[in-house]
């Protein structure tokens, strides 16, 4: 099951750093939990041997939403930090060029739109810093300023 996320690195540039392993592991645990529960269903309730892909995905999504998400069985897989989309919901790709992507299952961290946020990053090699300021930063230090690009002033 762990191979479910073992993909090669993406071949397209993305606007953000890869999600940390911890997020993948939480999502993987949730899917694994749902899968175990699906397999435990009696054949009268759901027969895995005869069901087609759509039926299995639908049932898996139902179990994820109704029995796993927010149940406390998988720590972190709840509405504190993650949300779970409806099955085959339409979502856009990172740059909006493909607005109708329809993954079978979709879960995301809160405020996924934040990839749109403007961040100003200062580190020791950023030229905006004056020489004096730059020397005060160690090479290991990075400072992120969460702000919008625009600060308006005027009376």
């Amino acid at each position: 099951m762990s191979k479910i996320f073992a993909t090669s690195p993406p071949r397209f540039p993305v606007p953000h750093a890869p999600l940390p392993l911890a997020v993948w592991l939480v999502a993987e645990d949730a899917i694994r939990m749902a899968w175990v529960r699906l397999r435990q269903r009696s054949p009268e309730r759901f027969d895995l041997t005869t069901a087609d892909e759509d039926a299995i995905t639908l049932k898996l999504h139902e179990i994820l939403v109704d029995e796993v998400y927010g149940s406390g069985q998988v720590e972190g897989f709840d509405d504190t930090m993650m949300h779970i989309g409806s099955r085959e919901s339409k979502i856009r790709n990172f740059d909006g060029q493909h607005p109708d992507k329809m993954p079978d299952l979709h879960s995301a961290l809160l405020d996924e739109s934040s990839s749109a946020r403007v961040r100003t990053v200062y580190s020791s090699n950023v030229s905006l810093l004056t020489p004096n300021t730059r020397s005060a930063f160690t090479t290991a230090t990075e400072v992120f300023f969460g702000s919008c690009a625009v600060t308006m002033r005027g009376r």
Partner: protein
Amino acid sequence: MLAFARNERPDDDSQFWFVSPQADFSLNRLGELRIDAHAAHVLSVGELIQESWLLKCLAIGSWLDVEVVRKIRSCKSRPLIEYWEGDLGLASTQGYKVKGEPNDASSLHVLLDLGAPKRPSSPFTVDPTAYELFSHETLDRTRLDEKSQDQLRAYRAPLFLLKKSLPPDRKLANSLTSYVDIAFNQSYYGYSACGDEDAELLVRYLHVFAHGSLWTYLLLATSPTIGTERPVFLKSDFDSCALIPLNELSEIAKSQLFQLSKRLESADISSFDDIDRYIASLFGLSKRDVEVMSDTGDVRNPHDELGICGSRPTTEQEIQHFCSEVRAAIRPFAKKVGFEVNVEQCGDQTKEDAFRFLRISVIDFIDQSVDDVRHLILQLADRIGASLIIQANDGVLFVGVLNQYRYWTKSRARLLAADILRDHFSTFERWQSS
């Protein structure tokens, strides 16, 4: 709100930036404004056509609010007016208007007049002995229904009468029920359930719903006027709000509704929390959803046009709660990869400081102070109008949050935790692996 546009018809997938500043009492007094990092969003035209309330919702809140409103609208609810007039065939109207053209109003003389009280009475329900009969000879708008057999249809009991001006506190009553026919003026929007087999319960349902914090929140998140202009809303705001049809409610839920309504009509102040819990359960809202509604209502109170509440310095207790929320949100993910995080307030700070700093570190991290650059960082933050500073060293993050309550709510703690998880978690991972 300013809109910058290209004179060219966009297609549905065209995107634009939506940036909305918040009322900031101290800064606005100086003729300046700040735009928070969480207040800049990329939206598509298609999204806006589907959900026309998006801009308003994002202007007063965050994406968390968008998710809550979507959840409310996507449950088994229907827009009120479609349910009331379309499904049930009942009447609703704004009240009569006095000034203007002199039209004959003698047909209304058989009714009591809500605008002519003899004495003070309950603000939650009409006491028929407390009102005079309607006495105007003419009205500009009578609201008589000329097409109906009963011209006074809009004034027939049972009635739900909603004040169009939002009171500063719902405990002052934003609406009332009437079980007698009564004329009401243009300060009210009236919904008559006369003729329906569940008429009384329908009116009680609207009365309880209107006194829930969900309704005030929906107004704030979707009404074009509330929270941006004066606290007066349009009838279409109530008409378009999501309501679960009465026949979808279980018998137990209907019974609870009746009891809550009776308590509300008797001005039982303790009923409000129970009303909120009842409505949240009807709409399937989680504790987190309610928290988002409460936080947004607090910092964007419609009666606080200057944003005084959101601009005040945060308290020590709020900072402690904020730290706990961030820790609780990050902890399951850290645990998954084998470490614990600690979130605490940095020492040597005063409540007057522009930013309050938190220290988020792996639990065994040995501090190597980097405070010597803090003053430079603050200068830079001021220069670019930042509301959030994250100073990252391996194993530790120093997070500066602008010292205003609006940035220290529980919802903002979750947004910060998501930011850290998405963009800065490697700080801890690197330290862990070294």
